[in-house]
């Protein structure tokens, strides 16, 4: 098999996957009577037309990157974390608690402390499914989903009760949210007039960190070994359950960090709907980015674009923002299917022999002519 055919085959399969994704999305758009081409154009280009748009995309890239990095660690270790949504909520609660308790700490101390607390909150929430999977063989897919629902309830409980903004009680509107957290927690917004904050650099730093962890340390090697083949790893003397739990805690911790940074950088108080599906979008970003930090950064930008663009379609072409969830679902299905197609050498051989047959026929015809 020639190298040229191999690359061509790969590119062909990926192009086909993109076309199928767009077509499936187009079916739904067609069903609601929307202008398919215009909708795609709005999603993909409208946010990039001005400074605010670009920074808003970057803003969404921050939590997506951090969560996807965590999910990558778990996925590479053989455990799928779909509980980032709940872990993020727990991180927000921990960060808020710290900020409410120590409002007078200087920024230089409070910010790392609060982010660390968020990480611990998320990691604790990630420990539960990790432990259940490693010790009791409970499917992490089910336990993390259930923990998402439980975390969502805990979150509203705290926002309605212990953490409720005192002003909400006196004013009487009763919106479940905390008070405006201390300004010492604010991450700098480095472009005036926009919301983009220094969390972007934290996200990029964490991407480097995860790369180093997974590919340059023995810890990362053992985790990847456990994920690649549990039996082989066990035979090689790796304590697989231990690394499963660690991976899940890192994964949860990262979701927690993402929550902290959203609070410190964007909302500046704990409100409802901060997580807004980032936990699930993070899975798509991780898969789309090839489960590698270098791929996750651009993938997070792309999905930030998609999420922000979908907000705009509502206004500009009357397509509900839920459309982004549809696209994400399709993208997951297409990616996992495409991966298997690419990994199937038999299929490639079959396609090649078809091509060879066609080529032979054509050259025969030329000879006859």
């Amino acid at each position, binding site marked *: 098999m020639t190298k040229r055919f191999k690359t061509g085959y790969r590119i062909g399969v990926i192009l086909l996957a993109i076309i199928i994704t767009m077509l499936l999305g187009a079916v739904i758009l067609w069903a609601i009577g929307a202008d398919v081409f215009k909708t795609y154009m709005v999603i993909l280009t409208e946010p990039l037309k001005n400074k605010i748009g670009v920074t808003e995309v970057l803003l969404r890239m921050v939590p997506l990157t951090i969560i996807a990095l965590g999910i990558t660690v778990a996925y590479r270790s053989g455990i799928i974390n779909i509980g980032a949504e709940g872990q993020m909520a727990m991180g927000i609660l921990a960060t808020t608690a710290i900020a409410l308790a120590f409002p007078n700490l200087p920024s230089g101390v409070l910010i790392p402390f609060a982010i660390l607390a968020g990480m611990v909150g998320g990691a604790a929430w990630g420990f539960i499914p990790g432990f*259940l999977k490693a010790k009791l063989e409970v*499917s992490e897919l089910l336990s993390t989903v259930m923990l998402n629902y439980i975390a969502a309830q805990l979150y509203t*409980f705290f926002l309605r009760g212990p953490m409720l903004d005192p002003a909400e009680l006196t004013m009487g509107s009763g919106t479940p949210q905390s008070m405006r957290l201390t300004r010492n927690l604010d991450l700098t917004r480095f472009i005036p007039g926009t919301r983009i904050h220094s969390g972007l650099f934290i996200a990029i730093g964490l991407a480097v960190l995860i790369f180093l962890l997974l590919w340059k340390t023995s810890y990362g090697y053992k985790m990847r070994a456990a994920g690649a083949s549990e039996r082989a790893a066990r035979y090689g003397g790796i304590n697989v359950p231990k690394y499963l739990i660690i991976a899940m805690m890192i994964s949860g911790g990262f979701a927690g960090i993402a929550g902290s940074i959203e609070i410190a950088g964007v909302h500046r108080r704990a409100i409802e709907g901060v997580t807004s599906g980032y936990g699930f979008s993070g899975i798509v970003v991780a898969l789309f980015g090839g489960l590698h930090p270098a791929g996750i950064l651009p993938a997070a930008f792309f999905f930030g674009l998609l999420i922000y663009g979908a907000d705009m379609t509502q206004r500009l072409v009357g397509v509900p923002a839920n459309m982004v*969830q*549809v696209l994400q*679902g399709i993208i997951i*299905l297409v990616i996992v*299917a495409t991966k*298997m197609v690419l990994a199937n050498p038999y299929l490639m051989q079959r396609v090649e022999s078809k091509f060879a047959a066609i080529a032979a026929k054509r050259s025969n015809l030329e000879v006859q002519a």
Partner: protein
Amino acid sequence: MTFIVNILSLGIPFSVALLIASLGEMFNQRSGIFNLGCEGMMAMGAFLGMLVPYTIGQGADVPGIYNYLGLLLASGVGALLGLFFGLVVVTFRAPQGIAGIGMQMFGVGTAGTLFRHFIGGTQSVPGINTAPIPGLSKIPILGTLFFNHNPMVYVAFLFVPIAWYILFKTPWGLRVRAVGTHPRAADSIGIQVNKVRFQALAVGGALAGLAGAYLSLCQVKMFSDEIIAGRGFIAVALVYFGHWHPVKIMAGALLFALAQALQLAIQGLGIDFPYEFLVMLPYALVIVVLAFSRKSQKTGPSALGKPFNREIRT
């Protein structure tokens, strides 16, 4: 006493959506497919079930028929979604857990998108009303408990013996169990493994769609984004809990529905207790139940979650 009767008579209709969906999931898992997309299929079913009476059924001469057309459409599309999922996990042999999440997002997202376009806001439908069984429903206590329900409740509980019969007493049921336990052996005697799995997925999808439509037409009588609220995932967990057996699954569905009814009843009593912790109850129960039923996993379909490939020996 009335308190207990109240909980029990609430719990039975609450169990129906779980019961129908997990019976469908049982067929999937018995054939070796772990379908985490159940939640998404239920969401689509809930939306489509309501769509029919809400649009073409409004002002019709016999509006009742459109409810049943809604149920039919929901199960039909559910079956199609099951086949689509089959394309990804059976034909392409994609990992089932992650594909299921994709299916869930696709289903929930599509239902939400279409809902905003075709219905818009919070709109309720008359739906299917309770049909007390004449005579029997007059029996004190037992009448309210068992004979004063929605017609779909009776149908759902009829599904239990039917599912049992199909799974254990028909050739097709045997084939489903064979491809889920030892696909290679099944293949060697001429059973088309992938075909049977596709059939099981269609059945499972149809039941998931029906379960969703039950929620929007019989239980809540409206659609919202949160209508399924994790019932699809609980249904998957129930299959583990019920050891892949229809009767035990029914027991599990009743247990969870009672937990939910209890939670609502306690809220209704007006005791000053944060309701958030009550809402958590069924979800926490799933985790506890899964943690203690791990030994049963070894009795489950041994090829569960493993794609079948004739060309590669495993």
